[in-house]
């Protein structure tokens, strides 16, 4: 078997920047192997992906040194269109990759560019749509597909070029758990076909099956090796802003023998060495139930006027002051629709929504921003000012507050999100994690009693996810009621006190976090699964949620 990709001493600095995005990167990928790349935001993963199909340095200009050879072609000397026969690149943002009005034409686009005859294009459409499981959707409009289907279509449209190497840059980041599994199962099939596959992913679960894991930090590759070697070096993972496999972390903290990468492995090891004895699980009840209800939904139905789809069906929900609540469920289960009722962005078709017993309809918009703040998923959907100061002060100025008071509030909000001293920065130039914080600060400045966040951790690396959630915990401690919508099970498990599981516009489960995650059967109905540590905890019968609590519990017996 030959070498598919060979990278020698590659360095690259984007034009008009000074910090190199890649520094002396070297590596080799054997034909037919599966490589997973991990690293923090800005570590150079995407740049490295783009350097394989000549987007770097052809599309993105800059200072380029070193040599990248893919199947005997030196990339820097080729054009992107030529490289497309050798390297297929699937990007994270599937929305931006799809542009045709039907699924089949989307797949046809690549082969058309290769000047293939019509019957060959037809054959490839057939073959690759079947491969990604979209054969039934041939005539559908891509916009009408679910997230996971869209990303699978994006993969099919790249596969149709029959590239020798397939590179996927964070293909699952924007997806819900089902979409993620759909995409990963396609990756798995490709692996079984022994195709050369390079995937960037944040989740240690994905990396477990790789032949090689490449760990990147600050533009350099700091580790290359089989998963069992790379994923067990917790300090190194931590320094790269990568989440370590929680089961490995648990075993190391307890000093137990073995480095289990998966829950199944961990259970086998515990059995084999008789490390702990499973016991019946005792779940705590929710504290703080005496506090007054701050938001309430009564028999709420909601039908989207344009689609005539019932997005909420008879939802009843009481949220008490000072709660930290996580809304979980698949895309389209009604989480966001429900949340948008809580600040009056949507008005129920039937039923009512109350804020401290007052119907939302009676509350003015500008007033509402002070009661319930809503942070949208993508900070770029709201940032528009030239300075962070202006951005954060926007809602206050809209409410007609005087300049001095605005100044004070802005400083306060920035301190809470950890961005003090950023007042004069241009928001657009900040990192994604920082922009996310600016968005939170701009909602916080109005000092809302309740703050709702839609996917606060999506698109952030592990390090930024942690610090974002720590900040929310801090807000919660200050007395704010915090509601998050999330796909990330570990985020919900470690930070929320209460979990509301939605399915098909209804509340399927509403319980204290530990209790909710003990109900694996009900969660499965909503296509959800507890995070690895809690699956192990459910088996062992431990009630602690974060790693330390679980370690403590297992130590004391």
């Amino acid at each position, binding site marked *: 078997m030959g070498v598919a990709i060979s990278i020698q001493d590659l360095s690259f600095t984007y034009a008009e920047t000074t910090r190199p995005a890649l520094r002396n990167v070297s590596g080799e990928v054997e034909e037919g192997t599966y490589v997973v790349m991990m690293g923090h935001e800005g570590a150079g993963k995407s740049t490295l992906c783009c350097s394989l199909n000549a*987007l770097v340095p*052809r*599309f993105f200009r800059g200072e380029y040194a070193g040599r990248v050879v893919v199947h005997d072609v030196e990339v820097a000397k080729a*054009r*992107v*269109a030529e490289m*497309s*026969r050798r390297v*297929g*690149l699937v*990007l994270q*943002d599937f*929305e*931006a*990759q799809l*542009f*045709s*009005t*039907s699924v*089949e*034409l989307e797949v*046809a*686009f*690549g*082969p*058309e*560019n290769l*000047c*293939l*005859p*019509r019957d060959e*294009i*037809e054959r490839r*459409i057939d073959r690759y749509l079947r491969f990604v499981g979209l054969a039934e959707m041939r005539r559908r*409009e891509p*916009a*009408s597909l679910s997230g996971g289907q869209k990303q699978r279509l*994006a993969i099919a*449209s*790249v596969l149709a*070029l029959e590239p020798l190497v397939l590179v996927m840059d964070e293909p699952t980041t924007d997806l819900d758990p089902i979409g993620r599994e759909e995409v990963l199962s396609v990756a798995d099939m490709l692996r079984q076909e022994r195709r050369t596959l390079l995937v960037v992913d944040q989740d240690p679960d994905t990396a477990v099956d790789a032949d090689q894991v490449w760990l990147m930090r600050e533009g350099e590759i700091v580790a290359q090796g089989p998963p069992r070697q790379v994923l067990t070096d917790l300090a190194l993972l931590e320094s790269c802003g990568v989440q370590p496999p929680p089961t490995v972390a648990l075993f190391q903290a307890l000093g137990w023998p073995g480095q289990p990468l998966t829950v199944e492995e961990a259970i086998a090891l515990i059995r084999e060495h008789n490390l702990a004895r499973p016991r019946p699980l005792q779940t705590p009840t929710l504290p703080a139930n005496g506090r007054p209800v701050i938001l309430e939904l009564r028999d709420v139905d909601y039908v989207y006027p*344009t689609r005539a789809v019932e997005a909420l069906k008879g939802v009843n929900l009481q949220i008490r002051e000072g709660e930290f609540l996580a809304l979980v469920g698949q895309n389209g289960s009604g989480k966001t629709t429900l949340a948008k009722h809580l600040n009056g*962005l949507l008005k129920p078709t039937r039923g009512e929504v109350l804020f401290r017993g007052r119907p939302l309809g009676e509350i003015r*918009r*500008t007033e509402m*921003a002070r009661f319930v*703040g*809503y942070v*949208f998923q993508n900070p*770029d*959907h*709201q*940032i*528009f000012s030239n300075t962070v100061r202006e951005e954060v002060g*926007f809602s206050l100025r*809209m*409410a007609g507050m005087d300049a001095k008071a605005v100044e004070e509030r802005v400083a306060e909000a920035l301190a809470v999100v950890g961005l003090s001293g950023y007042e004069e920065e241009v928001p657009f130039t900040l990192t994604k994690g920082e922009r996310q914080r600016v968005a939170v600060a*701009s*909602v916080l400045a*109005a000092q809302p009693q309740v703050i709702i966040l839609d996917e606060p951790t999506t698109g952030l690396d592990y390090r930024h996810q942690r610090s974002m959630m720590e900040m929310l915990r801090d807000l919660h401690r200050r007395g704010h009621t915090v509601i998050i919508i999330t796909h990330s099970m570990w985020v919900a498990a470690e930070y929320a006190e209460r979990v509301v599981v939605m399915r098909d516009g209804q509340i399927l489960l509403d319980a204290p976090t530990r209790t909710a995650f003990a109900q694996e059967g009900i969660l499965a109905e909503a296509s959800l699964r507890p995070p690895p540590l809690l699956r192990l905890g459910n088996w062992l019968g431990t009630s602690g949620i974060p790693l330390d609590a679980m370690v403590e519990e297992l130590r004391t017996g």
Partner: protein
Amino acid sequence: MNIFLYLDENTWFHRLDPRTKIIGVLLLFGIVMVFNHPLYMAAVALGLVLLGATAKALPNFWRMRYILALLVVFSTVLWPFFAKGPTPLWSWGRLEVSRESLMYAVAMGLRLASFVAAGLIFLSITTNEEFTQGLIRLGLPYPVAFAFSTALRLVPTFAGAGATIVQAQISRGLDVESGNIFQRAGKFIPLGVPLFIYAVRHTNMLAMALESKGFNPGAPRTWYLNPQMRRADYLALALLTVAFLAALFLRLQGYGQVLPRL
């Protein structure tokens, strides 16, 4: 959010070659322009409704019912004051309505609605790619046709992003509904800037994705869509040409006219 009007049916109309559809809709526009007598226009409008029904495009007519009704009503109310006719009906100072101007107004209302209806039929039976393909076969260079169809394609994407941006800013207390026109214009900055930046980012990503799939506007390429001019196409074009010429002939003979203007 779907602003596209294409309806995925399999009628005789849908199967026509895109060239036929493009030339056909132009001929329909021509026929719509010929008469200005309300009865003749009514016949044209009825014809278009029948065509629409055959093409299974009526759901789109229904979707656009308010716009269609609005066009008829506004034009009927406003035109009488601008067109002058010989038989006065009513006057008030310099304002004057005549029998002919009223009829002309009704005809103009029907003409506008028919115009929209012809366009709707075209959009209901033609996908974006077919339209592009048709333009290319009619001689438009590929890069131009591609840019055109991509621009069309991006409209719903940007509209969707725009809707989210509006909600995000409303959640922060932006009040888009009050204030005079200047105050309102100022409120579009919080909406326009994020949309603009989104558009730039999105287009950049799209360009990357296209290049990665081997796109090269100057290079030769093949087509999966392979429309063919068949007998039905020639027949349809012949019928429409005959209809157009017949209408033109009638009008030149003085039929279907209330006022001697377009």
